[in-house]
């Protein structure tokens, strides 16, 4: 008996986890309960977990191997697997306010690599008293919401994902140099078969998808817009208000998410710590895995 309670918070996506103190070691049963909740609800939330980066990493290791913080960005000091999600860093990188830049739109984490992270664990250190919510969408529900002809259509498509700078966005020379020095480009199936649940997910990551393979640029643009509209339909989403010590743990194989959109005029700090778990190479409905184009896989961090 783990004493963990799973409370769904929307019709398709998201559940609050109650009755867990992450300062203490989890039992195997606890881990199994949390994993099952994650697989079912795609993102699970914890409140008031006042833990250190090391404790966050220990928690993450119960579910997989942490990756280095990010292929192109720096980790926090002393914890190579912890990525700071800090508005000040982003504002420096992008030369000002960030929320309206295209790159901050809906995305699945790091899909530019051949093996995008399996899961992401994000914990709030300091957040504004209001504003700065994150929204997740359930890509399995979005796939299942397609009509039969469009499911079959999508299942045969592949898309090229890359880490790139959107047109017209001023970026610091440091980030630009890193992107240019280490291009990350991969081709993934548009419909991904989840390695644990066998569910099919509409695996399009708006920030990273460049084009659909094998169709004209115009067709690609229109198809992508259709799929983006599909995955961002409110019915598949959940929106989460952060507090200090809040944790969101999402299945990065079955979700996309949207960062804060409404904090440019709020001066409060917004600082979170993210750890991502090593993911496998996506596989399409036809059994064909993703294809690497440029860059290395995102493997386990060396601790």
């Amino acid at each position, binding site marked *: 008996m783990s004493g963990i309670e799973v409370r769904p918070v929307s019709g398709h996506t998201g559940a609050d986890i109650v009755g867990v103190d992450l300062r203490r070691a989890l039992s195997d049963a606890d881990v199994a309960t949390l994993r099952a909740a994650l697989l079912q609800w795609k993102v699970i939330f914890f409140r008031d977990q006042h833990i250190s980066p090391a404790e966050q990493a220990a928690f993450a290791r119960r579910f997989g191997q942490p990756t280095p913080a990010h292929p192109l960005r720096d980790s926090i000091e002393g914890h190579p697997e912890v990525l700071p999600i800090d508005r000040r860093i982003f504002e420096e990188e992008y030369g000002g306010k960030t929320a309206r830049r295209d790159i901050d739109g809906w995305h699945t984490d790091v899909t530019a690599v051949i093996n995008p992270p399996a899961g992401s664990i994000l914990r709030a250190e300091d957040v504004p008293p209001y504003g700065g919510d994150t929204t997740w969408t359930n890509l399995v529900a979005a796939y299942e919401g397609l009509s*039969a002809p469009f499911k079959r259509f999508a299942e045969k498509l592949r898309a090229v994902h890359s880490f790139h700078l959107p047109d017209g966005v001023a970026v610091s020379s440091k980030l630009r140099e890193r992107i240019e020095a280490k291009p990350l480009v991969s081709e993934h199936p548009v419909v991904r078969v989840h390695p644990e649940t066998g569910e099919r997910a509409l695996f399009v990551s708006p920030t990273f998808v460049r084009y659909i393979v094998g169709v004209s640029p115009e067709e690609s643009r229109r198809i992508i817009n259709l799929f983006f509209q599909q995955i961002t339909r409110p019915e598949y989403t959940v929106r989460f208000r952060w507090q200090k010590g809040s944790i969101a743990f999402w299945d990065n194989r079955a979700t996309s998410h949207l960062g804060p959109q409404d904090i440019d005029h709020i001066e409060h700090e917004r600082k979170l710590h993210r750890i991502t778990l090593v993911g496998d190479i996506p596989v399409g409905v036809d059994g064909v895995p993703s294809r690497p184009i440029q860059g290395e896989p995102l493997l386990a961090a060396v601790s």
Partner: protein
Amino acid sequence: MGQQVSKIEVRPLASHVGAEIRGVDLAARQDDATIAQVRAALLEWKVVFFRNQKIGHAEQIAFASRFGDLTYAHPHEDQPLAEFPEILPIDSRRFDQRYGKRYSYENRWHTDVTAAVNPPAASILRAQSVPEYGGDTTWSNLVAAYEGLSPAIRELIDGLRAEHRFGLRFAAQDSENAYLKKVRENPLVAIHPVVRVHPETQQRGLFVSPGFTSHIVGVSRLESTRLLDLLFEQIAKPAYTVRFHWEPGSVAFWDNRATAHLGPQDLQHRDVERVLYRVTLVGDVPVGVDGVKSELISGEVFGARPPERLRAAYGKTRAVSDAPRAEVRP
């Protein structure tokens, strides 16, 4: 009318669609070989044009009848010409009376009368009085448009069907308008394959148009809207089109199973008279890639005889069945 025996000349006007036919006087009766050549040019070029034809309604009807049975003027035409019930006037003066100022029945890209379960096989349009400049019509080759899609999209749409209805935008218009009220009260609706297999050439054509296609059936509203946007853009691509400038006596003859067209777009700021006369050939029921035929949802087959509700209006005219008889269609 004498018998004309001639070798016709077919001059393509664009790479995918449209050819001008020279050496034919439509006032004369054509021999079978000439008719066969015109038909071959029509099937290849989808729309053929004749210039300087000094003909009236009777000759237009006689020529058209060599290619098939003629329909009555139009499913919603309740004031047909007294002597020529097959003739549909495309007449700016009549539009003024019915709708206010406009120059065509449908001012977006469309294929004629696809709200009927059997849209006309072909249309023959003759210009009587047209502005010296402006008022062009543009045709698009729907076979070339289909072939220009990527294989993935073609595979998707080969299995889809769409609803076509007459008066898509009328709901938002003046509800007191008597003509539009009649259109609303007698809805004409059909479901056609999105990809039609041409009954003569067996070519696949993209059979949707902004004028009459309301939605794709069996998919979500979002999917339908986004896909139709893509397909509508495809049929209107300049690559697949030809644009024709009318003169008095110009005749355009298009394969309505393989084309869409766009009426005049540049006359709204002018006050000009534009009068053309159209006849349409009775068409068959479209068939999709899967062999399944179109489905009639509302209204009647668009054939030679007007439906019951229009019988009185057409009864005042010479009966359509008295029109010059068509030869048996191939």
